[in-house]
């Protein structure tokens, strides 16, 4: 039984309903193609036009001659391998540290009953209320001169990794998932002689694959897409991730080369999305309706 929506199946079955449906359907396909696919096409092909052609009016829909030099130039001139590698290192470290520290903390809060656990959880949840961007300046000052040890994490990937761990949303997601794991299961493991770490590693984590997947995607996307924070942390051009480097280099570089670099910068996230689209889309849809 198909679920009934705004328009009844009966109306749709009539000849007039069918006509309207297919008109609307093709309209939407066209609109989506123009609004969301065309800009991407324009970017990918724009990078393959010659520098003259890309600024020509009226513009050409298809490049007169296909140049790959835009892409190769971007790769070499803008030093994309370095910046892409920086981004990969920053994202991977943030992901790994978030998984290790957030799952450990969520496990402790959910199952180990630490004293003042409620207070700690309250403090963590309170940070959900504080909009992250509004605190970038004091956070920058803290990272520039860590209290007590007086070290600076500026221009170091640690300046991305450690603040990324303080992600209340992901920690809460994990904690809520761990809450659903029955206590008997963990007690059984303990009776069999498994320590807390072993229980976490061999029982809780394998059972939590779906939520770990969601947290992983969130963590990776967040670092890859971020701009303001890495802009503050990395003044050293050599260490900048691709998002910052693109903006810094965009001023004095040929348009076709810049566009090619933009395409290259988009590929990893778009590919990840196309591979995991089912999970990502299901995650967004489910997360919202369940609050």
């Amino acid at each position: 039984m198909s679920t009934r929506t705004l328009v009844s199946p009966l109306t749709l079955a009539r000849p007039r309903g069918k006509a309207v449906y297919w008109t609307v359907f093709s309209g939407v396909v066209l609109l989506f193609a123009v609004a969301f696919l065309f800009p991407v096409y324009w970017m990918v092909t724009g990078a393959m036009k010659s520098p003259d052609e890309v600024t020509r009016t009226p513009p050409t829909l298809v490049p007169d001659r296909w140049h790959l030099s835009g892409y190769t130039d971007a790769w070499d001139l803008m030093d994309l391998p370095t910046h892409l590698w920086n981004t990969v290192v920053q994202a991977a470290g943030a992901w790994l540290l978030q998984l290790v520290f957030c799952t450990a903390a969520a496990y402790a809060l959910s199952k180990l009953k630490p004293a003042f656990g409620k207070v700690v959880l309250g403090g963590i949840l309170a940070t959900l209320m504080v909009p992250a961007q509004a605190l970038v300046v004091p956070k920058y000052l803290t990272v520039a001169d860590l209290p007590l040890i007086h070290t600076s994490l500026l221009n170091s990937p640690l300046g991305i990794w450690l603040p990324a761990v303080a992600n209340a949303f992901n920690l809460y997601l994990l904690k809520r998932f761990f809450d659903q794991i029955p206590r008997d299961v963990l007690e059984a493991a303990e009776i069999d002689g498994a320590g807390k770490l072993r229980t976490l590693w061999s029982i809780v984590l394998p059972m939590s694959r779906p939520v770990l997947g969601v947290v992983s995607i969130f963590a990776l996307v967040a670092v890859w897409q971020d701009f303001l924070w890495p802009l503050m942390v990395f003044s050293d051009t050599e260490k900048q991730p691709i998002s910052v480097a693109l903006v810094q280099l965009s001023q004095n570089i040929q348009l076709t080369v810049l566009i090619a670099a933009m395409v290259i910068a988009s590929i990893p996230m778009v590919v990840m999305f196309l591979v995991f689209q089912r999970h990502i889309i299901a995650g967004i849809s489910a997360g919202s309706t369940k609050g």
Partner: protein
Amino acid sequence: MKTASKPPAAFPPAAVGAPEVPRSAGRRPGGPWRRRLADQSRAYAFLIGGVLCFALFSWYPAIRAVVIAFQKYTPGSGGEWVGTANFTRVFHDPEFTAAWRNTLTFTLLALLIGFAVPFVMALVLNELRHAKAFFRVVVYLPVMIPPVVSALLWKWFYDPGAGLANETLRFLHLPTSNWSNGADTALVSLVIVATWANLGGTVLIYLAALQSIPGELYEAAELDGASLLQRVRHVTIPQTRFIILMLMLLQIIATMQVFTEPFVITGGGPEDKTVTVLYLIYKYAFLYNDFGGACALSVMLLVLLSAFSAVYLRLTRSEGDDA
């Protein structure tokens, strides 16, 4: 071996190593108090890494923002109390008024454009019976493009010379526009970019909400002779009211922190037409080296946004209790 005690399915046999049983059993000779201390220290060993990060990068900066807002602060040499001088100085900056006006206008426009459009899109998409997966992927594609790339892409589209936006207008024989370079159009141009880049997520959330509306409601309304628009008004909107409210609050919170688009596309100009509050905070800190002023602004933004967040959290929590 206590194999009778129902090992869970996910439990690999390797973890039930026989020598571990007596060892861990023999490790607890102390009384209940001592055992509790051991449990506690173990719990805190798991907790400590995460909590330290929160303390350093969330709690401490939040307190520090308030402290530095009342100080003349120079990195390296500490702060000197100046009372409310930072606030008065920031307040008398002409850019302050511009930044707040721009931010509020941006948020309002983003609500008008970025709110109605995804709702209508979701409404239409929900009626379509074919190519659903295609639509979902395509609408979410811009969200996965890095925001910096979206901003640079649209900067190129808006180019008054050979930009795609004006080319399209010329092709349609419409008057061209200055887009992000025009004093009147710059802010709207930025709202369009932000909407394009972000609406995919909103559409997907609406779609999920629309799918949870029971079909009988529409059936009953139709039997009562309700037209299409009446069904939207009396069934769809009331049924999704909660999600609409949630997304509205989230969008207000998100758009009031806009930075990337004005920074990349307009650089705050023309004049000060696209300077936002977060952009001004950035300028105070990194252009004027005035960390006191930056923190004073941060505190103002923080107070305002936390109020919205508090409403949001309260609403989601009460909804969660009902369910």
